């Protein structure tokens, strides 16, 4: 394009469409990127990472800890402690985890669940 591009005044309608387009894209970023559901669940036993599973499946995982076998249920985008040999069942009562950063722990059996998927909104959880 060797001829000069004449810079005519942009049309009002064009500016409007461009502006609305920018808002549209912005809204997409803010809605789809902030509440992105978690992609993986990380199961830890004691000090070590026991396993990391994709949340996109239906699966039961049995983990043997110091006091017995804990069953963890993964079901298409969410995970939970299904059963555990601990006396208080706090872990089971936590219910379904479905968002990035959510975690549950069975202290007596030293098993923890954490949902990972992209950037966690924080580095550590105070409780």
């Amino acid at each position, binding site marked *: 394009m060797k001829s000069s591009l004449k810079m005519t005044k942009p049309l009002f*309608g064009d500016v409007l469409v461009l502006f609305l387009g920018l808002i*549209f894209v912005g809204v997409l970023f803010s809605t789809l990127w902030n509440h992105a559901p978690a992609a993986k669940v990380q199961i830890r036993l004691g000090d070590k990472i026991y396993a990391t599973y994709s949340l996109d499946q239906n699966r039961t995982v049995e983990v043997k800890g110091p006091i017995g076998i804990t069953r963890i249920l993964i079901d298409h*985008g969410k995970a939970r402690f299904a059963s555990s040999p601990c006396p208080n069942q706090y872990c089971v009562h936590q219910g379904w985890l479905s968002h990035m950063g959510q975690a549950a722990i069975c202290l007596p059996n030293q098993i923890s669940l954490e949902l990972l998927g992209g950037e966690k909104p924080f580095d550590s959880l105070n409780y």
Partner: protein
Amino acid sequence: MMDSKENKSIKIQTTVDDHRIAKLAALAISLHLVEAVLPSPLPGVKPGLANIVTLFVLYRFDFATAAWVSLLRVFASSLLLGSFLSPAFALSLSGAIFSLGVLFVGQYLPRKFFSAVSLSILAAFAHMAGQLLVVRFWLIPHAGIAYLIPIFMGAALVFGVVNGLLTNYLLSMNSAKQAG
């Protein structure tokens, strides 16, 4: 086509416009092929230069012609690339149909306020939406697409603006030529 019992040679009457349209269609196909060969940073994200031709035809001729050129491009390119009836073809066709749908309505926007840039942006969004729907409901039915949608739509916006500006430029050159 003229059906005749006599063994006359069949002549298809073509007008000057037909020639022009054919040339433009060929140009659109070429642009599509060139883009198909060039690598793109994100799979499925292309500048869509062939859409410039579609818009140009819409302004110079009419919607029906633009639709012809567009669909011709989709079918011919896929045949030439050997991707007829493949996923790539489905994406291309879906995108074309959605953007034509938007152009069908958008062509009535008052030219005083809206130039090809507006139509190009709207068509680009529609094109991308059509492609994303094919991906989501046929090719990869996976929730993970949510992350990509904003990026693809952002790219559509950018390319929509660029293509629209190029179309405006070409239209002004072309009318300058026709005027003088």
